[in-house]
């Protein structure tokens, strides 16, 4: 039996007939990404407590002109653009912040703010997302420095040793490496750009590489978050140790 007709719902920001709590996806992204942004900015400008013993904060690596011979500001500001650009143009983070910060859209089938001009990634500033692969190349260089720092973290006054900080830096660089290797641009450059694997030299090898990077790429979101948390935690740990708030526990 038919009942009384109900008027249609209004359009506009947040308008939806979805019954689930669609906003619960936005809140952790907003808090984590926003919190990381604020913390990283503060730490980059702090210009203190970035190294202790063999440990160097990943925010300040590679350490350039710490004595301020020619650069008067924090050394982190010289290197931050590389990792920041890599994450800002990352295909996963783009989805995360377009949804959580720009509400474009806030969630699938949920209304956006009305009367907003939309250019997507066809105009400035978002057309710059197309340089992601260049930040990937830069990220590889950063990985070399961070691996060097992580290995150095196992040598205390020239002697091999293991501190909690050594393990944190090692875990951090492993997660950062996996995140970088799961990059969509790398997957494309390794083999995705080919139309015919069997028609080119090293095609089988490139197909295998493409499949391997695709396997990692399927988990790009998880690696993005894990590495973001690990890099923030590594810096926080070194800051706490360097400022004397906690002591680095030596395991060996």
């Amino acid at each position, binding site marked *: *039996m*038919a*009942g*009384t*007709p*109900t*008027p*249609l719902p209004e359009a506009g920001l947040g308008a*939806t*007939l*979805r*019954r689930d709590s669609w906003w619960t996806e936005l809140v952790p992204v907003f808090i984590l990404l926003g919190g990381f942004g604020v913390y990283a900015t503060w730490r980059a400008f702090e210009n203190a407590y970035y190294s202790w013993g063999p440990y160097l904060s990943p925010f300040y690596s590679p350490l350039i002109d710490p004595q301020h011979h020619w650069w008067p500001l924090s050394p982190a500001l010289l290197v931050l653009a590389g990792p920041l650009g890599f994450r800002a143009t990352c*295909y996963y983070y*783009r*989805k995360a912040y*377009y*949804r959580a910060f720009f509400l*474009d*859209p806030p969630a*699938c*089938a949920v*209304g*956006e703010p009305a009367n907003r001009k*939309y*250019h*997507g*990634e*066809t105009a400035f500033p*978002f*057309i710059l997302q*197309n*340089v*992601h*692969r260049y930040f990937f190349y830069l990220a590889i260089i950063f990985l070399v420095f961070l691996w060097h720092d992580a290995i150095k973290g196992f040598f205390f006054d020239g002697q091999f040793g293991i501190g909690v900080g050594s393990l944190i830096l090692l875990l951090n660089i492993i997660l950062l490496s996996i995140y970088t290797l799961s990059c*969509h*641009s790398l997957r*494309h450059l390794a083999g*995705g*750009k080919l*139309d*015919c*694997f*069997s*028609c080119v030299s090293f*095609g*089988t090898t490139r*197909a295998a590489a493409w499949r391997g990077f695709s396997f990692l*790429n*399927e988990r790009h979101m998880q690696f993005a978050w894990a590495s973001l948390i690990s890099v923030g935690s590594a810096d926080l740990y070194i800051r706490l140790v360097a400022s004397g708030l906690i002591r680095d526990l030596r395991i060996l």
Partner: protein
Amino acid sequence: MAETVLRVFRGDASGGALTDYKVPVAPGMVVLDALHYIQGHLAPDLAVRWNCKAGKCGSCSAEVNGRPRLTCKTRMDELPKDEPIVVMPMKSFPKIKDLVTDVSWNYRVNKKIPPFQPRPGADWKISQLDVDRVQEFRKCIECFLCQNVCHVLRDHDKKEQFAGPRFFVRVAGLEMHPLDGANRVGLLKDELGLGFCNITKCCTEVCPESIHITDNAIIPLKERVVDEFYDPLTMLFRKMRGPSEKRNQAG
């Protein structure tokens, strides 16, 4: 037998409202069954587009409780029982009547895409290695749920500038085809508006065929656009290497 209320859109392009219908719920019933019950017993004039009732024809797309879905694949027992189930037509397309929308715009977009063009002298034996990747794109059933949920079409109504995820899947299947000789990368950037996509992945979330639209079609195509238009190193390398067979045939 248990009963539930279906709140269904009744109307056309000029307007309409949601109307409640009480429907008996049988085990294994899907939303399309409930709509058929309404047609058969309560409102014979209810317009619903459907065909196979097996999730393969892509005809019965609609929005169930605000989520774009195939009504033939949406089980009633998965939906909350304590409130009416709201069934709306796809929002991104003009309404014809009740749950039926006019999806003909999609067919006009499709005509813009150059079909498969074999490379001259192509060896028609294809290695399995090369078949595997494009196979995924052939699963598309053209239900247009991805087009419906894409906010570029749904909220920003960029139908003149943007082709939508369904057609990026089609182009990906052609561009990555080992025997195809046409180049559609310029078309993707300019006429099909790939840059409007901000990869928020709603198309992937709603695809009933579980095609990884964003990761396997759209992003690889974006990377191909970068190769051709935004990456100076690749452009330089290509100039040094000389024109490829495929690019020679670019229309």
